[in-house]
């Protein structure tokens, strides 16, 4: 096991435990205040696109907002299928197949 990766994984575990344990151990009957609840619900909705979209549109740090970027088409397929309430893993698999096919045929 690589030392840097070990540090990363242990740090991830500690950071994650810090999100799980304190409020469970507090055993409080008081619900979180509504604006705080809303913020906690919105965080993943903001973090995941902040991660995904630059991976798709800025591969290697260079803008690639062109039809020749296979990942752009894969993204549209994934979003269309999830919007149509398709199974999550099915949507992902379809996106992967589209990207692989476009790369294979060099379209």
């Amino acid at each position, binding site marked *: 096991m690589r030392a840097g990766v070990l540090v*990363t994984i242990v740090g991830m575990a500690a*950071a994650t435990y810090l999100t*799980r*344990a304190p*409020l469970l151990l507090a055993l409080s009957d008081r619900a979180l205040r509504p604006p705080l*609840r809303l913020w906690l619900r919105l965080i993943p909705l903001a*973090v995941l696109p*902040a991660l995904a979209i630059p991976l798709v549109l800025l591969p290697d740090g260079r803008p690639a907002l062109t039809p020749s970027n296979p990942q752009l088409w894969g993204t549209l397929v994934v*979003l269309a299928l999830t919007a149509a309430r398709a199974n999550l893993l099915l949507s992902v698999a379809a996106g992967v197949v589209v990207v692989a096919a476009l790369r294979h045929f060099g379209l």
Partner: protein
Amino acid sequence: MFVYATVWGGLARQAGLSLGEIVLMCLIVTAGASQFVAVPMIAAGAPPLAVIVTTYVVNMRHYLMAATLAPAFRGFPRRWLALIAHGVNDESFALAAARRNPPDPWFFLGSVAAVYGSFIAGALVGAVLGGLVSDPARYGLDFAFPAVFLALVAVQLKRRGDWAVAGGAALLALAIAWRVPGNWHIVIAGLVASGLGALVMQPEDP
């Protein structure tokens, strides 16, 4: 859950994580979305602190679940709770909270055991299978990461404000990532867009 973990295990293996690293992460982190987030960052050689802070932000939603579960665990020994806390996860929470309010603690724990077991078993199967594929980009598998992230978000978008938060975060992240090297665009855009959304949007009923 098993299939989701299998996909993660396979992708993690192709991204260069060893079997030991994969098993350790499943055992002590045990948070699917953040593990999906961490793998491409680790593969790209991101500094540990960047991965750890990003993991923390992705997992901050656990605070919401832990606070909702807390009343159900009144009367449990604190030492147990310190251990049970590690089991807080999206799927078990969703199942337990949908059945009863406050959730049934024993139902929750049963679900945690099932999720934990299938998560680790799935990741192991995926890791072994993933070791067999030699050129992931050829099969479009590098795209599986953004695809999972986008699908996870798309199923959660309910209110108009949700769309604005997700879209705003994407644009802000693009702008930052284009100009600033490193991985901080994820955390910064994520916190800024969700924080603005929480300030502007009408809070919802619990």
